[in-house]
């Protein structure tokens, strides 16, 4: 068996199109026995709010087509974001961190976030985690 690999992902956008790739990669990584740490910052932190994944929309002028896109996603057999989150957590290899500066900036309290949030930290804290990872992504 290959040695355990580690992946760090920074998620800074809260729109539907930018929410999928990190959760797809994190769940696949977790299921591949990788240790995955995800840092949710700026608009990305909205995804960790209770029901945040459910409320995601397409960005900008594509926003009115969100419903159409979600129906297409379902039709082709891609998991919904809440389902993907559940499966990601079930791998037991993925941890979620909330950016504390974003919490202050956007007035988000701990109790606004899903209980599965592993920790709260700033840039230096997450960089310390990312520095020891084999894969580092910014989405």
């Amino acid at each position, binding site marked *: 068996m290959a040695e355990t690999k580690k992946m760090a992902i920074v998620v800074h956008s809260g729109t539907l199109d930018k929410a999928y790739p990190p959760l797809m990669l994190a769940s696949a990584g977790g299921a591949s026995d990788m240790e995955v740490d995800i840092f949710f910052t700026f608009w990305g932190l909205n995804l960790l709010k209770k029901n945040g994944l459910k409320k995601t929309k397409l960005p900008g002028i594509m926003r009115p087509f969100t419903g159409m896109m979600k129906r297409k996603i379902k039709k082709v*057999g891609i998991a919904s974001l809440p389902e993907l989150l559940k499966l990601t957590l079930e791998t037991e290899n993925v941890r979620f961190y909330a950016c504390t500066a974003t919490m202050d900036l956007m007035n988000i309290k701990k109790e606004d976030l899903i209980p599965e949030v592993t920790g709260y930290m700033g840039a230096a804290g997450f960089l310390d985690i990312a520095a020891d990872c084999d894969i580092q992504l910014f989405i």
Partner: protein
Amino acid sequence: MTEKPKTDVTLDARGLQCPLPILKAKKQIKTMEMGQVLEVLSSDPGSKEDFPRWCNRTGNELLGVFEEDGCNHYFIKKQA
């Protein structure tokens, strides 16, 4: 390999897209005994590349892949 391996558990992941076949396979294989064989049915074209690499990464053995009924059947022996 021309003959299909004996299967202990079958997982029907047809109609599911990436990364669901892998996620469901991992969930299933966790519940199985060492040496048992999992057969995964997947229609996701990405699975052709995903399952051999996933098996290699996780230390499980891909015994073979068979195309049948319009989808691929992946036979995975639990080794880890």
